[in-house]
């Protein structure tokens, strides 16, 4: 068999317009790799997050009242970082729920998220030694329509009257509809999202809110994996670096020197 290979097929050109992105990525990668390595050696500290202790309280309250816990990852698909973080927290919540014997209801917006949530909860129940208590019917796909989903979750709240509502993931305009309905049934509500505009709604209507990055940090904190903790520590140092870069930019731009700004702008 003869393969015809045009000369151009092996022609590789580096896109110089993306050099700044590559440099930033390499710096991020190096810092993350360093802190993961450091994390594996132990000794990294993450401060406790107040919203997380509230989750224990909420699950405990639901158990006392004999009512279910409602958990939603919002509208995010599996590739969203907030959904990945939410799954880490879900694993922890599912273990608590399994140990207390409290029902856990998870209506899903995306079929892939549903499949992953089922696996996460199933494994958590198995880890707690209660695989027989796992109910796959409680984790189900609803719809990919934003307000259809909000209506379905509101319906579950009104009918099942969960004692605790956990809204952790990506949310859009439906956030307040969910949180206000939850408030009207007297549920303890904990929210966390990276959707900046929805944070204000959650803060007003929920008992605890994990703000943006706190959601990612919470998932790392709960996973207890030093490699994950290390990468979160790296984020902190990257923030310090960015703050310094912004500071330099502010000073130089004020002095009308724009070369610094141009280094970071789109080419």
């Amino acid at each position, binding site marked *: 068999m003869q393969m015809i290979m*045009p000369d*151009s*097929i*092996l*022609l*590789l*050109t*580096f*896109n110089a317009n*993306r050099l700044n*992105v590559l440099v930033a990525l390499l710096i*991020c990668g190096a810092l*993350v790799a360093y802190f993961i390595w450091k994390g594996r050696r132990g000794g990294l500290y993450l401060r406790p997050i107040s919203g997380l202790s509230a989750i224990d309280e909420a699950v405990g309250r639901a158990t006392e009242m004999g009512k279910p816990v409602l958990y939603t990852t919002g509208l995010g698909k*599996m590739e969203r*970082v907030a959904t*990945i973080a939410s*799954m*880490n927290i879900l*694993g922890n919540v599912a273990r608590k729920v399994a140990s207390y014997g409290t029902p856990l209801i998870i209506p899903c917006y995306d*079929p*892939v998220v*549903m*499949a*992953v949530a*089922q696996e*996460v909860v*199933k*494994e958590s129940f198995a880890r707690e030694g209660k695989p027989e208590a796992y109910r796959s*019917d409680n984790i*189900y*796909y*609803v*719809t*990919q329509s934003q*307000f259809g989903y909000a*209506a379905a979750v509101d319906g579950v709240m009104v*009918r099942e009257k969960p004692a605790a509502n956990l809204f952790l993931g990506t949310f859009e*305009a*439906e956030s*307040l*509809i969910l949180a*206000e309905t939850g*408030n009207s049934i007297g549920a303890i509500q904990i929210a966390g999202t*990276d959707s*900046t505009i929805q944070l204000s*709604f959650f803060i*007003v*209507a929920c008992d605890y809110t994990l703000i*943006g*990055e706190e959601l*990612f940090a919470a998932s790392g904190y709960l996973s207890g*994996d030093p*490699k*994950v903790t290390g*990468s979160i520590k*790296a*984020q902190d140092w*990257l*923030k310090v670096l*960015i703050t310094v870069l912004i500071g330099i930019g502010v000073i130089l731009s004020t002095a009308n020197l724009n070369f610094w700004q141009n280094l970071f702008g789109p080419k």
Partner: protein
Amino acid sequence: MLLKLPLIIVAVFGLFMLVQFFVEAPFLDHTYQEILDWVQIIYLFTLWVGAINLIKLHLKKSTHKKEAPYSVVTLSGIVIMLFFGLIQGKEVGSVFDWIFKNVQVSLQASMFSLLAFFVASAAYRGFRARSTEALVLLSVAAIVMLGRVPIGDLISGLIPDFANWILNFPSMAARRGILIGIGLGTVATALRVLLGIERTYLGR
């Protein structure tokens, strides 16, 4: 092996996407386009998973007395829309289109309109001057609300200007801070996924 295979797939395709972002070559572009096509094809299969789960669940629930009416409505909706969609298509003037515009649009718009009422009740309950910070928060909220409607301009031309200043400076500064944190979180998570440290997407 069952665990390693998805990790290898993620690492190989993730690295490929990264390389093709920085390097230009005809064969990279071609492979990239192929991957995008496959992403769409695979995603369509996952919709089947969702639809089957939904139908199975509601068939089961339709035998429960309490849940039956909701499940019957859901299942009828699926059957009716499928039936008309398949025999008549979804063009303008079809039954599918009529149901969509007159039932689904109206129902969904009603859900969205609930926001007006919920914003009011949340504002009534949440905006209480319990501290100086809370007083500042509610005053700014009131000014921004006034500034975003023509009545604010009627009261004083300064109100919309001040509302825009709040949105463009203090509010944007805070939002950018959060966005930078989220961006870094995204990069760190992506690296963890590529390195096989983050395995939540596998349900582990």
